[in-house]
Structure formats: C-alpha cells, structure tokens
C-alpha cells in the first residue's frame, strides 16, 4: 500500500487533542525566574537616562540589565542594525530598553515600573513614503557604518534600508506614445501573524554557554542571532526547540530569547523565562509589512501591455531583520502572470518609527498580487474587455520569462487553473449578469518554494522503528508530523507510525533552514529520501549476510525483509537492527538537500537579493462576495482554489493548508487592521480591536489540487503551505469592486469603504 497521497493521521494529533503537548509557552525549568522587558513608551526619542539601581533593590529581583550591561554590538539577519536594548535613542513603541528577572512575575513587573527612565520624545516618522524623502530626518544616522551580516553590501541609503530597481530604458517613451495609460495606487496594511501561542523563551547560562528553549521555526537562525546579540561564538549558544503553537513566519527571527539569555547570565545562571503577553506580542511582532504600490501600464489599441512601471514603498519598521530580501518582490511580482513589454520597477524598503516588520507566510505576495490583479481589472474595464477573457488572452506561456529572465515551464497549469475553476463555477462577468450587491473576482499567481538547504540523520532502532534527528521544525503544517514520515515510510517499506522525529537541537542535528517558504516537506522530504535509501541499502546488505542471499534479491515490506518473488517474509527489521547494532554499529543514514538554483539574468535588476523563484507553482483563485447595503459588511459567500501541488503527500494536510491560508488571508482582506497613530502607538492594540476571523466568518473553501510530477520534489511534491495565502486580497477586492461598481484600491476593504461607495442612503 502506498503511503503517498493518503490522509495518514499526524503523529502529534493525539497528544495535541488530549492537551498533553508541551509548547514553549508551557515549558518550565526548576529554579526558573520570571523575566519582563521594559519597553519604550515612545516611538522616537533620545534615551537620556535608564537607571536600574532602584529596580535592582526591589523584592525578589535577581537581575536587571540594560544596554550598559551588554557588549556594544549590533545584530541582524541581513544587516547588523539592531541593538538588544535601546542605547541612546528609542525607535519604536515597544522597543526593549531594559530587562528584569525576579522570583515571580508580579515582582518582576513591579521592579520594571521602578526603573528610572528619561526619554526626550522626538517626532516619529510613521509614513514610509514620507520617510523615504531625501530631506526626512534619519532614523539611523550611522547607517553607513552598518555591516551586512553575510556577503557584500546592497543598495541602501539613509532611511531606505534596501532598494531593488530595474530600468531597461525607453519606458517613458512608450508611455508617452501609448494610446492608453492606466494608473493605480494600491495600499495594504500590516498583518500580524497571530499564531495562537504568544512568543516566549526559557534561557539558561550554564558552563559558559547559553541554552535557549523556544518554540521556534528556525533554530539555527536563532542561534546565529542570539550569538550576535550576546557577542559570543555561534556555538556558544544552543537552541532546543519545543512544540510551536503556530508561526506563519513570525517565529523565524529572534524575539525575547537573547534578552532571557542575557538575564540568565546576570542572574548567575538561574533559568529565566520571558513570555510575551498577547498585547505585548501584538505590539512588537514582526508583522507582514504594509505597502504602497504605484502601478502604471501603457496599453495599445489591442489591449497589449507595452510597458509597465512599478514603484513600491514597503514599511521596514525601525530595524531590518530579513526584510531587505522582500524589496525584490515589487520587481518579481510587478510583471508576472501576464505578458508585459518593457518593465521598470523600484522597490524601496523604508525605515520608520514602528515595530520592525518581517516575513509572514507568502511574504510580500498578497500585497503585490492585490495591486497587480486589480490593476488588470482596471485595464480590462478601460478596454471594455471581460476580466477573465482579458487575463487569458495575455497569460504567460511556456518559454515566457519572469522579470528576472527565469524561463517558465509547465505554465499549462496556470491555464488549467482557470479551466478547473470554470468547471466548478462558470464565469459570468458580463454586465447583464450582475446582481445588485453581489460580485465575483478571479486572479492568478505564480509562486516559489524557498530553496535553502537542510539535512538530517536517521537510525534504525533495535525494535525496527526509525528515529530521525533533524533541526527542521513543524509549526503546525504537518510537514514533519505527517509528510516526512510518509515519505520515509514509502521509501523504506515501513509504516509512517514507525518513524519518530526529534525535537530540534542545534547541538545535535545538522543545519536546517527553518520552516519557511513551504520548504520543509519538499526539501526535508528530499533529504529524508536520501537518508532512507542509505539506510535501506545497509539494511538489505546486513539482511543479505544474515540470510546468506544476495542483497539485490531482497526487499522491505511493511517492516519485514522479503525475497523478491516470495510471499512470506524472511525476517523482521528488528532482527536486522539487532544484528547490526550488536555486531558493530547501528544502521544509520544521512541526507541533505537544497533546491537547485534557477538560471536567471543577473543583470536584470540592481539589489536583487532574492534572485529567483525556485520550483515555481501555479495558482488560480475565485471569490464571490455579497455586500450589505445596511452595514457595508462584506460576506465571502463562495471561495474556490485551483492549486498546483506537484503531488499530494497527505491530503488532509494539503486541505488544511488551503483552508487555513485562505482564512488567514480573508482576515487580512476584511477584518484585520493595523494602524499607527501619529505618535506611533498601535491603534488596534488587542484582540478585540485586531479582529481575527472566526468560524462564523469563513466559508468552507472549495478546491482542486492540480498534480503534475515535480522532479525537484519528493515523490513529485511541491511546497503547498504558502501559495493559498497569496490571492484572497486580490480576488476579494476585485469581487467587492464588482459588487459596488467602483474600484477598490486598498486592503483591508472595510464596510466604511463600501458604504462610502454605495449611492443613496440605503432606505
């Protein structure tokens, strides 16, 4: 029986449903102290004084630290621009200034209020476009001295933390001569990952090293970052992972871990736990960035797009993290899906006095596709063309390239996506089909899989089961709880339940690039096949010796060794394992993989830190909405997805990724809002105001998976967790515009927008 494509039950399901799973937030150590951070109440200002003496003398306090107690080092994923504690200025509301560890949380909190703080408030820069102006005051006057974390420096300048630009020349001339120019401005807000488990860490300074317990998506990245902040060698930090209560990209970089580590050292090695409250977590999370996208197209009489010009501003917040890579996305996604002549693009990542942004599932894709696809609607409307027909007419085909020069293949899946959706809901976009207050939208996307490497090792236990040691993490997707065990089981001839996967530990496991960009099933799956094949060869060799037959005649079936052609098995895997283990060495295997680099044109753009789309996938989404003329509320009444998944490894997990990502993205489109007041304080600062979508708000998504073997994936699989988040803003905005007869050019789309657009008073 094949294990591929089944809906095998994930290995952690029962412990989770029984409440037995211990998440990082639940984790405790004997003798543990409670840590809290004192965070900046101002978005900008000079830090004149931070006196910890009174706080240190408070009851129960074991340590109090601030910038003065740390090495004067800066840290960062891509550029070292971030201090652990604010030193002489504060740059966002919520920036850590000091930390306290005490016997109880109440005592730590009381001591934090006793810290004597003097800040001379400054005027915060909140709007990225304003901050990008050459005369804007600098958030980082020392920006020139900042050191890139790896490799060479990249284009940055003052408040522009990173810039990616491409100009083939001659674009203006095409616009000047074009019969039709269509221009749009599309804005999107930040999105909070809102994993249900807030961030936390327990850290211990012991025997000259730091041990960090965390529920982290990328333990090796955390190890790097903590070592940078603490000013120690990378391997002086050990990260041990625990069950993750959701991540969505929010738990890829550091949060409170290095602070807890520094506190533990200051408290003579007592373990210190810092756990964000939800309000703190929301206020300081590395959210998906907000964007301002200006998109123009020059169009000829037949509707062909002769040239496109894209200018995008992306909010970096006060520090950079990995955001410098995202500055590449306005370039990648500004002229994708549909054929465009000449393409000029500039993406500017801008420092502002707001919490640092970061990667959220699908990174900048939802914003860029919303801008692109609604711009396509706008062009079609100008031409009097049907939205679907116009898209199909200009859809990319095999041999077409992405803006980076990467040649596309298998684009038939993109066209097939439109066909699959047509089979489920025939398109009715004509004016005569319009029903008042109802609308529909259709959009497409091409996406990628994060290509970064990962490796693992595995051993055959004496009872014939398998233990896998890896630093890869499962943030809930099932990649390690279901997918990888199924892949190993299929390769080896055992059952998925017989595969056990370790929690990550950077001292023990090989490097892994974290659960990001839909890579785990695909890359760790490939590594697992390599490891399992090694193991298989060794098992058969040992079994061959034991049975005195040629290993080539043997096979493994449901955990037993069989001679090919025979029906009865000859021995159990446990017997082979015992013989090998006590005959000299356990049977072990290792594997590693990364997705192959894709050929692209290195001269295509300047500052292209994220150069290509590895293992491209194709997607089409469709939505129907109904707006209420009473409240302006928007109801998504139908949602359909056609998704390229390569091959389905676990059908329940793939469905979960689609349902969950669409829900999360509907949240971004209709409910979630993250705005900053002029003083830099977050307006939607708790879960009453930051509205997460509920069971009553989300339709059940209809979906088709499009399967086409992917030679770059295990059993043909491709990453499937990210792409379904890309298109809901695009299709829902389009459907609302259809329903109200006016364009929508912002996310979230609110009832206020709808009521404003509706004529009359609703009577």
């Amino acid at each position, binding site marked *: 029986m094949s294990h591929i494509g089944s809906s095998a039950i994930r290995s952690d399901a029962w412990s989770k449903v029984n409440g037995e799973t211990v998440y990082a937030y639940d984790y405790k150590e004997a003798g543990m102290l409670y840590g809290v951070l004192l965070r900046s109440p101002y978005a900008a200002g000079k830090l004149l004084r931070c006196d910890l003496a009174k706080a240190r003398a408070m009851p129960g306090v074991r340590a109090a630290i601030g910038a003065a107690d740390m090495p004067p080092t800066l840290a960062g994923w891509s550029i070292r621009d971030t201090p652990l504690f604010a030193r002489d200025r504060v740059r966002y509301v919520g920036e850590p200034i000091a930390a306290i560890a005490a016997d109880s949380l109440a005592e730590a909190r009381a001591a934090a209020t006793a810290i004597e703080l003097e800040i001379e408030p400054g005027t915060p820069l909140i709007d990225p476009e304003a901050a990008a102006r050459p005369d804007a005051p600098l958030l980082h006057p020392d920006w020139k001295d900042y050191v890139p974390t790896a490799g060479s420096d990249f284009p940055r300048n003052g408040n522009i933390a990173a810039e990616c630009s491409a100009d083939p020349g001659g674009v203006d001339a095409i616009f000047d001569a074009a019969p039709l120019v269509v221009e749009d401005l599309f804005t999107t807000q930040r999105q909070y990952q809102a994993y249900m488990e807030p961030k936390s860490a327990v850290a211990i300074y012991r025997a000259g090293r730091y041990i960090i317990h965390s529920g982290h998506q990328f333990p090796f990245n955390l190890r790097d970052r903590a070592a940078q902040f603490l000013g120690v060698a990378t391997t002086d930090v050990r990260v041990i992972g625990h069950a993750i209560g959701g991540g969505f990209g929010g738990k890829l970089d550091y949060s409170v871990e290095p602070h807890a580590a520094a506190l533990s050292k200051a408290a003579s090695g007592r373990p210190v736990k810092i756990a964000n409250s939800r309000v703190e977590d929301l206020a300081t999370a590395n959210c998906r960035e907000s964007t301002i996208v200006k998109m123009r197209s020059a169009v000829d009489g037949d509707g062909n797009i002769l040239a496109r010009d894209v200018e995008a501003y992306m909010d970096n917040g006060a520090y950079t993290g990995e955001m410098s890579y995202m500055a590449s996305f306005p370039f990648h996604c500004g002229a994708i899906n549909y054929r465009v002549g000449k393409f000029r693009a500039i993406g500017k990542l801008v420092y502002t006095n707001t919490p640092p942004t970061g990667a959220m599932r699908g990174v900048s894709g939802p914003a860029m596709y919303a801008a692109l696809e609604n711009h396509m609607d706008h062009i079609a409307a100008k031409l009097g063309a049907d939205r679907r027909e116009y898209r199909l007419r200009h859809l990319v085909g095999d041999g077409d390239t992405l803006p980076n020069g990467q040649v596309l293949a298998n684009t038939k899946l993109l066209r097939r996506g439109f066909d699959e959706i047509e089979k489920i809901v025939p398109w009715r976009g004509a004016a005569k089909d319009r029903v008042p207050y109802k609308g529909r939208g259709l959009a497409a996307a091409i996406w990628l899989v994060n290509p970064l490497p990962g490796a693992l090792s595995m051993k055959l236990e004496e009872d014939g089961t398998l233990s896998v040691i890896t630093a890869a993490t499962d943030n809930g997707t099932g990649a390690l709880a279901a997918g990888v065990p199924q892949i190993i089981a299929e390769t080896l001839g055992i059952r998925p339940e017989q595969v056990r996967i370790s929690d990550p530990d950077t001292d023990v496991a090989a490097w892994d690039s974290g659960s990001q960009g839909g890579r785990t099933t695909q890359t760790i799956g490939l590594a697992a096949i390599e490891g399992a094949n090694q193991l298989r060869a060794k098992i058969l060799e040992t079994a061959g010796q034991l049975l005195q037959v040629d290993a080539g005649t043997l096979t493994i079936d449901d955990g037993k060794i069989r001679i090919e052609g025979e029906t009865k098995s000859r021995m159990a895997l446990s017997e082979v394992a015992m013989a090998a283990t006590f005959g000299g060495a356990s049977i072990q295997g290792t594997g590693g993989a990364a997705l192959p680099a894709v050929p692209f044109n290195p001269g295509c753009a300047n500052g292209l830190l994220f150069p290509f789309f590895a293992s491209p996938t194709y997607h089409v989404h469709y939505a129907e909405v109904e707006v209420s*003329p*009473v409240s302006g509320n928007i109801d998504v009444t139908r949602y359909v997805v056609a998704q390229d998944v390569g091959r389905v490894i676990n059908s329940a997990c793939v469905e979960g990724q689609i349902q969950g990502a669409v829900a999360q993205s509907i949240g971004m489109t209709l409910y979630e809002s993250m705005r900053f007041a002029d003083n830099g304080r977050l307006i939607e600062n708790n879960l009453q105001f930051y509205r997460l979508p509920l069971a009553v708000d989300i339709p059940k998504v209809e979906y088709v998976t499009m399967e086409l073997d992917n030679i770059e994936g295990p059993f043909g699989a491709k990453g499937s967790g990210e792409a379904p988040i890309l298109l809901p803003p695009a299709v829902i905005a389009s459907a609302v515009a259809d329903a109200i007869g006016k364009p929508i050019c912002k996310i979230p789309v*609110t009832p*206020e927008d709808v*009521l404003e657009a509706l004529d009359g008073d*609703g*009577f």
Partner: protein
Amino acid sequence: MSADMDFLSLTSLAEALEKLRSYGADAVLVAGGTAARYQLVSGMVKAKVALHIERIDGAAGFSGNGTARLGALTTLRDIAEDADILSRFRAVAMAAGKCGGWQTQSIATAGGNVCTAAPTADLLPPLLVQDAEIELQSRARGGRTLGLGEFLLDAFKTARAPDEMATAFLLPAQPARSADTYVRIQRRGAMERPIIAVALRLAMDEGLKNVSEVRIAVSGAGALPFRATEAEALMAGNAPGKEAIRAAADAILARSSFRTDPRASASYRKAVLPRAFAHAVSICSDAIAANGA
C-alpha cells in the same frame, strides 16, 4: 490590584442583602464576573470585599404571563436560547446571543450586563424599548422598581444604592400586531461589541397601515443607549414609508453624537445608523405583516 480583597460566595438572597447592608459601598457584587473581574483588576472599580452572587438560589429564570419577570441572574446563553423569550421579546434574546462568545454567555448575567451600564451593553436597547423596569432589593428598604431609563444615569453610573442588588427585570406584555428586533452593526459575525445598535418595537394599527406605536433605542450614538423619543413621536400615526423613516432617522441623528474609536470611525457610525434603523423597521413591518397574514 486588589490582591487581598475578601471574597464571599453567597447562596441566598437574604445573605447577599445582609452583606450588602454591612459593607455598603465597600462591597462589589460579582455575578458571572465577566465584567467585574476586569473592573477590579484594572482598578476601575475599588472595593474591600467581593460578594459573589452567581450561585444565589431562585434569582434566575424567565416567568409570568402578561408582565414577564426576568431574573437578574439569568445567564445570557439561557436568555438567547429560551423559546418563550424568543417568541415574546425577540430582541432581548437576540441581544443576549451576541454578547461575546458562548464562554462568556454561559456565565454572564442579565443583571451584570445592565448594572455595568457600559455604553455598548447589549441588553439595554431591547429592554429600553420594552419599557422594562428593574427591581432592586435592599435589606433596609425592601424592594423597589425603577424604569430602566431612570436607573441608567450615565456611562458606568446607575441609580443603584450601595446596599441594593438588582433582582429582576419586569417586561410588560407587547401589544397586539407588534414585533421587536435588534439590529447590531458589527464587523465580524461574532465576538464584537456593537459599533451601532438599534432596538425597535413596532406596533401597527388594526388595518396594518399605520404605526400605532413605535419605540426606538439606540446605542453607539451617545454616552449611553437612549430612547429616540422625538423620532418615535414623528412616526406614530403614519405609515412606515420611506419619508417617515427618513424623517425619523433625521430626528435620531439630531440627538446622536458619534465617536471614532479603534472599532469604527464617527463618520461610519453616522452613515450606518439611519440604515440600521430603516432595516429594523422593515424587519418589524415584515414580521407583523407575516403574522397578520
């Protein structure tokens, strides 16, 4: 934080009234505690002792023909699911079912909802349109009843004396050919405080042509929910057509004031209130017509 506050769990009304008499303003009543715990932890309300009345016998339930009696300790979930309340005072049941999630409704009480006197308290508008009275009891003076409008003084302020406990709400029977409803403007399908809410009780004359009486209560348009009496007067005796609705809506707006908060802007509240009101009128008209038919 009131870490060292006394906490007394009481099981009878007599006991509760006795404790209220001795502690007076030093006591805070805790029913479901869904609002009270927050008020105490945040320091919004200060007290030396909490009197836990959630488990007092006989103070929950809905009873009575004609004038109905709703016990102050009836939980919102019980109200939302009570078939009798649903058929006789629909808006009250609708409002109760929209306060927070089921986890809150399971323990939150009608008395707590009303006595908090929060600007967005959901039971206030539907009780106001029923001209409901609140029954208050004290050890010293026995019982008294008060119109809800008189009971509510301002946001978070009521006419409850420190030694009094609310024990019930009295709802007079609805007239013939009438219907009531609660239109609540909210962003998500649940777990929201209302942005604007309108409770309406509409009664038609015998020919089902003209409004014989209408009662309108609005929340989100002032410090506390209020009865829009001017609008009510404008509609009485007229057919509930577009013009009458528009005139009444203008009268509601005339005495409304709107705030911008993280949930919605003042301009949205202003734009949505007339629409919510008109929608409420059409729901009630349709219901009356359906019953008459």
